[in-house]
């Protein structure tokens, strides 16, 4: 093809591009939003938590090194294993793979940044501040101690009256927000900001992996968000969701937690598999064998992993046939994993593997992960699991799949991609030592645990008697753990001596890789945005790097004077419009800090200060939002190659609409989990439902009035939208404003009617599991109502300030989408609560 901008570009234009992307100086540096810096902060913080949780592991292994040890009390040990698991899973594993995505994805797709840079900055700071405070609970003896999965009744108000469990429940609240924010960003970024020509069949495998990762977060995290909210309501207000004597059920927690918990481990593994699929082709200088099959495997793992959760509950007395479905699915999920392993082996066989440090980590990953996969299929057999459940066999299994499947690829990824971030590569010699110590240390630590478990040693015990024959195995495991620590220490030395992050773009394409993140560039990513015709553009498109760097491809400048990238169509990556993006932002950082403060203060029951922080956080968010939705502020831009693109887009093709749709999928998943909770409790405790218990349902007049009010409010918003479309001039906006202003109290009245209806019928949330779940549904409706009201009033304010009209309407569209969703969710809630009990009698 002819180059889009074949003439030489001016250096003033290039200087302007660099200036627009420059990071702020001095203290304001912390307000940076560029994915390169946010990604590095994020990765660094995740590594910090890995080290901290690793120290906890060393303490545990020291306690277990010899029988009947008294290095620490059982209470301390309980906090250690709970925090080790929680920090590793929530503060290290998911953030680390998300952080690699934040750092790599825009570069790999030749976008200049993620589509919502401030959102990823917010996610990072909330995680950093909240996670650090959460970890510090250890120093006050306030760390959670009920296991990383926190089963009630142990963790409910009767048996865990202190703040420890609340720290877990509220502590992971902001991590949940971070993960969801990241997922929205990643989905929209992968689908809408790619290099032109990067159609779906040329999408890097890592992008496919991250797309599946983010999609899984959207459907899995809501279950744990709901579960933590319900358990906190039970602990704080005694709403008995999980109290069997009052018609609740502890198994409800297990279903909700593991519906999240199983996909969680694939959320952790799939990005690592994606990274391996980028490293192996480079190290063998051969395209990945079986690209389509690997895409199938990634999506298949994602889907099937949602059908496995009961395999964590094989010993709970669930009927045998039900267990068998999950056993079958747990075996079936091995097929996509196997497809990927064979694809990597085939790629290695098709090329010549250079035994670089990243390649060694990949080989280590293959060995360890496959062993973990084999023991996984073993525990998928119900009778076998009945023998090894809650023993060290399971500990061995999951460390083989998690450390093998994620930590080894992550170390490989650090060595592989370090040249894109650092002006010096990491050391080969220290890398070999790191690998050797980690690989040998890991197997010495964890392989014996298979036998320890088969010999009967249970999990989560702080010591064990000498005469059971577990002593040598434990001592060997402890030695292995310290060898792992030595390997990590060598890695830290390597980082300290060699890793020098520079905004100037690293030390070059040292591995001769084929994908776009290796193009020369800086904080602006690349001087121009290339057109791609292959999966390995650097191998197949001659002179690509030179031409991109000389500005001969698309958008070699900053025509609107601000940060921009190109939005492309999701399937064929045709350029659609230029996305105007923000730069450094104080309100983003402040809203993250106050969000974290809100959760932490609530944990220690300082309710009024918590509410103050919540109000400030919301105010900061509104200040932040006020600078979004710039409207068609600039005439269409010529990006080169005869293509002129608008700088603003409304309607279903806008990135903002897509982000809102993903958010609504999250909301729908939370609601779906709540509907499941209602129906599950009805299945197991029908005796507390109205028909059996005699407690009265409100008369049908209440939900009928509520439904009418809901529909009126939606109609108002729909009318507002239509009148906005045909509005001309400033006076033409008044019908929209009045419709919106009227819709607000109508929506509030609908929520109020539902709440009052139950209250006046005598239902109180503390009486039974039925009452608790009904009030939870009402409460969720209230929460969505409040959010819709804030959005509606915000939209009104923008319109009154002249920042919203018929052409500049993205803010209105977001409000409209959320509003209609709220109404739809509330209607389904009304039908469930008022019609279902009457239908089943």
């Amino acid at each position, binding site marked *: 093809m002819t180059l889009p901008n074949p003439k030489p570009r001016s250096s003033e234009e290039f200087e302007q591009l660099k200036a627009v992307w420059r990071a702020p100086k001095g203290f304001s540096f912390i307000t940076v939003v560029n994915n390169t810096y946010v990604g590095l902060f994020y990765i660094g913080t995740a590594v910090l938590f890995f080290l901290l949780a690793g120290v906890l592991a060393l303490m545990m292994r020291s306690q277990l090194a010899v029988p009947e040890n008294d290095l620490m009390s059982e209470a301390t040990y309980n906090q250690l294993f709970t925090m080790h698991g929680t920090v590793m899973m929530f503060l290290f594993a998911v953030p680390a793979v998300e952080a690699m995505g934040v750092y790599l994805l825009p570069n790999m797709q030749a976008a200049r940044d993620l589509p919502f840079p401030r959102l990823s900055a917010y996610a990072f700071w909330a995680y950093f501040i909240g996670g650090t405070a959460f970890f510090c609970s250890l120093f006050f003896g306030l760390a959670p101690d009920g296991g990383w999965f926190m089963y009630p009744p142990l963790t409910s108000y009767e048996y865990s009256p202190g703040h420890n469990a609340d720290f877990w429940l509220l502590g992971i609240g902001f991590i949940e927000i971070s993960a969801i924010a990241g997922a929205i960003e990643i989905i929209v970024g992968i*689908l809408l900001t790619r290099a032109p020509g990067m*159609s*779906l*069949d*040329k999408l890097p495998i890592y992008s496919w992996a991250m797309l599946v990762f983010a999609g899984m977060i959207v459907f899995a995290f809501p279950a744990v968000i709901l579960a933590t909210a319900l358990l906190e309501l039970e602990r704080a207000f005694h709403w008995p969701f999980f109290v069997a004597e009052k018609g609740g059920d502890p198994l409800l927690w297990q279903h909700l937690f593991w519906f999240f918990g199983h996909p969680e481990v694939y959320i952790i593994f799939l990005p690592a598999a994606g990274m391996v699929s980028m490293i192996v082709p480079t190290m063998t200088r051969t395209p990945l064998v079986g690209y*389509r*099959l690997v*895409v*199938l495997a990634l*999506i*298949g793992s994602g*889907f*099937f992993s*949602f*059908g496995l959760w009961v395999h964590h509950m094989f010993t709970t007395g*669930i*009927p*045998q*046939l*039900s267990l*068998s*479905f999950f*056993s*079958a*699915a747990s*075996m*079936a999920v091995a*097929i*996509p994993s196997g497809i990927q392993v064979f694809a990597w082996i085939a790629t290695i066989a098709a090329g010549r593997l250079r035994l670089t440090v990243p390649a060694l980590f990949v080989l280590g990953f293959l060995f360890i992960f496959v062993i973990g996969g084999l023991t996984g299929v073993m525990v998928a057999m119900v009778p076998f699991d009945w023998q090894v459940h809650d023993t060290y066999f399971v500990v061995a299994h999951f460390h083989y799949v998690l450390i093998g499947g994620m930590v080894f690829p992550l170390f490989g990824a650090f060595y592989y991609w370090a040249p894109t971030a650092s002006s010096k590569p990491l050391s080969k010699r220290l890398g070999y030592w790191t690998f050797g110590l980690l690989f040998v240390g890991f197997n010495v630590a964890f392989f014996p645990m298979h036998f320890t478990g088969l010999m009967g040693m249970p999990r989560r015990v702080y010591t064990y008697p000498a005469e059971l024959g577990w002593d040598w195995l434990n001592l060997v495991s402890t030695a292995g753990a310290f060898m792992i620590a030595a390997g990590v220490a060598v890695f830290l030395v390597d980082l300290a001596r060699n890793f020098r992050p520079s905004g100037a773009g690293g030390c070059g394409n040292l591995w001769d890789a084929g994908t776009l993140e290796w193009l020369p560039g800086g904080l602006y990513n690349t001087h121009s945005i290339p057109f791609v015709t292959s999966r390995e553009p650097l191998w197949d498109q001659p002179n690509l790097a030179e031409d991109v760097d000389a500005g001969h491809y698309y958008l070699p400048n900053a025509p609107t004077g601000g940060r921009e990238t190109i939005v492309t*169509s*999701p*399937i*064929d990556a*045709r350029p*659609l419009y230029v996305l105007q993006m923000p730069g450094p932002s104080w309100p983003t950082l402040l809203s993250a800090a106050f969000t974290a403060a809100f959760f932490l203060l609530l944990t220690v029951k300082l309710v009024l200060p918590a509410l103050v922080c919540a109000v400030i956080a919301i105010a900061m968010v509104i200040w932040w939002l006020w600078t979004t939705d710039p409207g068609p502020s600039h005439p269409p831009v010529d990006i080169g190659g005869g293509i002129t693109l608008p700088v603003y887009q409304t309607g*279903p*093709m806008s990135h903002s*609409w*897509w982000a809102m749709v993903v958010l609504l999928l999250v909301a729908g998943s939370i609601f779906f989990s709540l509907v499941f909770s209602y129906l599950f409790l009805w*299945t*197991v405790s029908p005796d507390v439902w109205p028909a059996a218990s005699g407690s009265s349902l409100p008369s049908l007049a209440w939900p009928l009035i509520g439904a009418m009010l809901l529909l009126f409010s939606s109609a108002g918003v729909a009318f507002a939208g239509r009148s906005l479309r045909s509005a001309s001039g400033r006076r033409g906006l008044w019908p929209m404003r009045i419709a919106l202003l009227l819709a607000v109290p109508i929506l509030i009245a609908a929520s109020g009617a539902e709440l009052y209806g139950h209250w006046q019928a005598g239902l109180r949330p503390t009486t039974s599991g039925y009452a608790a779940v009904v009030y939870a549904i009402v409460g969720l409706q209230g929460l969505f109502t409040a959010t819709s009201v804030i959005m509606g009033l915000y939209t009104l304010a923008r319109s009154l300030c002249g920042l919203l009209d018929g052409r500049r309407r993205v803010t209105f569209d977001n409000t409209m989408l959320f509003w209609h969703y709220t109404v739809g969710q509330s209607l389904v809630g009304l039908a469930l609560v008022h019609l279902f009990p009457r239908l089943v009698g």
Partner: protein
Amino acid sequence: MTERSFNLSFASALSGFLIWAVHFLFVYIFTALACARRFADIGVFGVGIVPLAVGLATIVAAGSLAAICLVSLRPGPAKTPSAHFLRRLTALVAGLSFVAVVWAGVPTLMVPVCR
């Protein structure tokens, strides 16, 4: 490229997994309710109601998946590389889901329902 045609293309490519999910949800919920509400002992034409429901669901799901797989494998009007890619992906997805659906249905032939 409108949002709807993306959603439709993506959903059709993943139709195999969606059918797997519906089948899985149905067999699990039906079995759970049958045991919790004790209607698993009902027999229809001499076959227990649970094996019958699971068996029928499995046959219907597996049949649909086989059909989707065969239809997408036929040479079709693939206008662009991405359209061709999505068509092939549809067949692969349906094939893998077929295996998973059959595998999930098989226990019903061997395992007692509610014990």
